């Protein structure tokens, strides 16, 4: 911010001082130069023949992939049902584990800030940072391929996400309501049930359906590594270049995701 005295004694105001102005223009100049240089490097490293050819190939695949092979739907009912179950059961299991972790991680409810809170935060970070596909690969090695591995992978991956959002909600509660319940002589658990839980219920419901919605998407790919669900059909169809089947599978996934989104929007609307 710059207040500048004019020669006739009046004052004027500009957003930037002249030297700030020059610095900003210089920064823009550098940014453009970097962009042009990067563009050239990428261009040199690209085999342009493949790029020019891409529309033709895409058109070719599209013509092979249409129309979808509708009769294949009979073989997809089970896998899509599995997929939805993986997402639902995985989310429920994750919520059961996330609730205690969230209470241990929230500054205002943790039993010990020095020992338990860091452990809870570690659980949150560790489960969040590893993708569910990688969890599935690990779990298949441990408990073998199948739907169960998928459920566990989804559950583990979701703990951190749910616990993080939930503990932030716990930290934001109105403390006076907790004080009031404490003042009545309620026990620690009663204070939790009356003072804290009602305040975080909307957040909890929102987090649960939001994560369920995400998990439907995540569980569609778990089959690619053998953890059950519709991804298995997708990967085998891709392997044998059965494009009409691939199209149908993608359509089925699309419908499942849209339905999931619709349900979660309805639930959230009803609660909040």
């Amino acid at each position, binding site marked *: 911010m710059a207040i500048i005295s004019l020669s006739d004694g009046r004052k004027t105001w500009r957003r930037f001082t002249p030297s700030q102005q020059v610095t900003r223009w210089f920064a823009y100049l550098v940014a453009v130069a970097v962009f042009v240089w990067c563009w050239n490097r990428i261009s040199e490293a690209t085999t342009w023949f493949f790029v020019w050819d891409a529309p033709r190939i895409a058109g070719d695949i599209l013509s092979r992939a249409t129309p979808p092979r509708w009769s294949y739907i009979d073989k997809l009912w089970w896998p899509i049902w599995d997929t939805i179950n993986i997402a639902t059961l995985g989310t429920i299991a994750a919520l059961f584990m996330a609730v205690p972790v969230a209470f241990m991680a929230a500054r205002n409810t943790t039993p010990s800030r020095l020992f338990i809170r860091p452990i809870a935060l570690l659980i949150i970070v560790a489960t969040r940072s590893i993708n569910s596909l990688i969890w599935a690969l690990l779990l298949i090695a441990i408990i073998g391929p199948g739907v169960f591995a998928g459920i566990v992978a989804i559950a583990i991956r979701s703990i951190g996400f749910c616990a993080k959002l939930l503990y932030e909600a716990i930290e934001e509660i109105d403390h006076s*309501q907790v004080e009031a319940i404490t003042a009545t002589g309620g*026990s620690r658990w009663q204070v939790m049930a009356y003072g804290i839980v009602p305040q975080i219920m909307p957040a909890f419901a929102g987090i649960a359906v939001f994560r369920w919605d995400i998990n439907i998407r995540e569980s569609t790919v778990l089959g690619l590594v053998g953890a059950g669900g519709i991804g298995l059909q997708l990967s085998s169809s891709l392997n044998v270049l059965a494009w009409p089947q691939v199209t149908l599978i993608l359509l089925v996934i699309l419908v499942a995701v849209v339905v999931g989104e619709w349900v979660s929007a309805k639930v959230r609307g009803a609660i909040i």
Partner: protein
Amino acid sequence: MLRLVELTKTYPTGDQALKAVNLEVPAGQVLALIGPSGAGKSTLIRCINRLVEPTSGKVYLGDVELTTLGSSALRRERRRMGMIFQEYALVERLTVMENVLSGRLGYVGFWRSFLRKFPQADIDEAFRLLDRVGLLDMADKRADELSGGQRQRVGICRALIQDPALLLVDEPTASLDPKTSRQIMRLICELCEERGLAAIINIHDVALAQIFVQRVIGLRFGAIEFDGKPDELTPEVLTTIYGEEDWEQTIEEVDEEELDEAAP
């Protein structure tokens, strides 16, 4: 009935909120605690039921010394001290009935309270109290649907259903309009009289305190500067409590209000 001996609170930041306060409140006495913001009024009443842990000193409720109690004994004693809050502190997403019944948590086990299976006697008492404060048909409404005055009435019911011997009241009227403020103060004082309760009421509105209470304590920088009858509050006294200001206006206004009050 309540006796504070050399009660001291020093916050970790080094602020001395209470400096060796001595105070005795006989049974059934309604007392107003006045003083500027930051004088330690809230800290004082929170040190009594140990929502804030006092640094040193003793608090006697009847014969029981509160500052050394373990957690379960403290919970038993907290049942005898009802608390009413400035911003009502109702659990917003629970119903009026649940809020009133939450005053019984100290008497009911966890699972009964969790499943909302309160004893019928408690429910009868809740209905009686709601009827007394004029909210009987609101019992099934959610607390966040109520107006400020109605919420404070629910807060009063929650404190009274504890069957307390003492009410700790923290700025009960600070969020209310002048008319509702008077109604709430009158209600609190009437209920204290009906039930023979002692009460400590933190209040900013000196005029309002003078109308309703029997005794006024002035707190400044964590120490008691004044202890006397409401009509002993002279401009000089208010100056020692709050600092220099033209107090004549405040006190004159009180006299007129008292006349209004007496007229009908």
